[in-house]
């Protein structure tokens, strides 16, 4: 690991003006620094910032500090009761130890698990812009079927962000130019020709909070994660569904997928296929077909297309069956 300058900050103002890469839980960054994938010259430790609380908002939503640990968020009473999909997504990710360290802001910014990104012996446009992509013609079983480009096919690894996508979360930041709020749906970038640019954050800009809007009365939600092991593994395909029924008719539906996209992938096509329809297997299957219609599988990951469809169908069944 390369040596770096280290500093701690106690105020957001100082953090935003500090020169260096922010470190909070460290579960992604330290890992990648050991691999020489990340080589920051300076680290700014933001663990001392007052951003570790979960609070109700006046509109009935939730405001989550960027430093709230994944385990605290997953076990928060409000989250468990009102935002089930988020609690389930968090508890399906990583291990208890990692969830005790990983933060809300850091989880949103975690880097891909693409083998070629993590190994500096290979070409990777995300790690080294312009060097090429060894994944496209390599072992790409775990890679993206949605949102990829000829420059990058790496998936976004987060479960939490997928749930937040379906919950229509907003990311709040403070940067050198002041504060701003960004819909999570607009936060991530698809790789295009610049896979190294994964989100809209600018240099020195710090995630301070994530807010969740209140959900319509009687809304149910669920996160289903499919993977090679029963636990402690990244998703091959996952589905976050948020549904409100009126009788057996779907009044409100939000669908997002993990493990298949170059970013946490919300499917408005699937949502449209559900809106106003009877909640039954036929409707769910039509929504799943719509969600995966844009899919472009690579050599080794064609199975993900049907896996993701089934994840959506099953998640919708589980969410609506006891409603």
């Amino acid at each position: 690991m390369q040596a770096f300058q280290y500093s701690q900050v106690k105020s957001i103002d100082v953090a935003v003006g500090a020169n260096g890469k922010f470190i909070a839980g460290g579960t992604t960054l330290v890992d990648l620094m050991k691999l020489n994938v990340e080589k920051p010259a300076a680290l700014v430790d933001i663990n001392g910032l007052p951003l570790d609380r979960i609070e109700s908002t006046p509109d009935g939503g939730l405001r989550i500090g960027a430093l709230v640990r994944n385990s605290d968020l997953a076990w928060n009473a409000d989250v468990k009761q009102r935002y089930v999909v988020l609690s389930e997504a968090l508890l399906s990710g990583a291990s208890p130890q990692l969830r005790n360290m990983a933060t809300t802001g850091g989880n949103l910014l975690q880097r891909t698990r693409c083998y070629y990104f993590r190994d500096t012996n290979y070409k990777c446009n995300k790690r080294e812009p312009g060097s090429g992509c060894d994944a496209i013609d390599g072992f790409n079983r775990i890679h993206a079927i949605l949102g990829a480009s000829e420059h990058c096919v790496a998936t976004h690894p987060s479960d939490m962000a997928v749930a937040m996508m379906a919950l229509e979360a907003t990311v709040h930041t403070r940067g050198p130019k002041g504060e701003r709020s960004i819909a999570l749906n607009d936060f991530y970038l698809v790789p295009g020709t610049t896979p190294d640019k994964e989100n809209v954050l600018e240099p020195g800009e710090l995630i301070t909070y994530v807010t969740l809007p209140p959900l319509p009365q009687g809304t149910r939600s669920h996160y289903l994660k499919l993977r090679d092991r029963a636990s402690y593994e990244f998703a091959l395909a996952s589905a976050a569904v948020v549904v409100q029924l009126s009788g057996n008719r779907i009044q409100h539906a939000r669908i997002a997928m993990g493990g298949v996209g170059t970013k946490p992938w919300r499917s408005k096509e699937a949502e449209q296929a559900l809106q106003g329809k009877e909640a039954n297997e036929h409707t769910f299957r039509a929504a799943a077909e719509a969600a995966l219609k844009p899919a472009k599988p690579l050599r080794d990951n064609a199975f993900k297309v049907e896996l993701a469809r089934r994840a959506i169908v099953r998640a919708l069944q589980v969410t609506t069956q006891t409603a």
Partner: protein
Amino acid sequence: MRKPPDTELLEPDAEKPSAEPSSPHESSSLFGRFSRRSFLTQLGAASLAATTAPLAHAAAMTPAPAADIDGKVIPGAVPVALKINGQVHRVMLEPRVTLLDALRENLQLPGTKKGCDHGQCGACTVHVNGRRVNSCLSFAVMHQNDEITTIEGLAQDGELHPVQAAFIEHDGFQCGYCTPGQIMSASALLKEPIGKEDADVREAMAGNICRCGAYTNIVAAVQQARHSA
């Protein structure tokens, strides 16, 4: 561009007995006067003596004076105070030294094990402020205000922690390398809101890999500790 080796700080004398007062538990009657580590260290020194100059032997056997740990200034190192098992340790560490490496190589607390060094195996699990974390994925310098507990500090007043006793009773190990991490993980689990079933324990212990496959006995040990807690 070649990176400097991670072990740059870890000169051979890092393995020498420390002049720092060692953990009270390390030398307690619980584990006898000789730990496995001290035995192996002396064995290594003895074999070194058999093959190299006597001077090397003397150097290897002489405890480092306190200044070697407390006063040595390494370029880039900063003073770090860590509260481990109730005792404050002051050391000079480069910011890139992980909590795991600081424990093992600088503070002579090698009970915490290095497995994958990437947060994937759980061998390095310790408690920070009562919660289990992977010490390999955290820099020591980030823990100056924290209460850290390692496997060396789990037994209290000569009494094994209930999880330690349960692991012995249920033979929750084979080679033993993952065991400190398993026990630290399980002892933190007792305070977490997880379900009662064996499947809940398996899920909650998923961050600790046992390549010997002692899982059945580990689950039994954890369940016994939960019932007795």
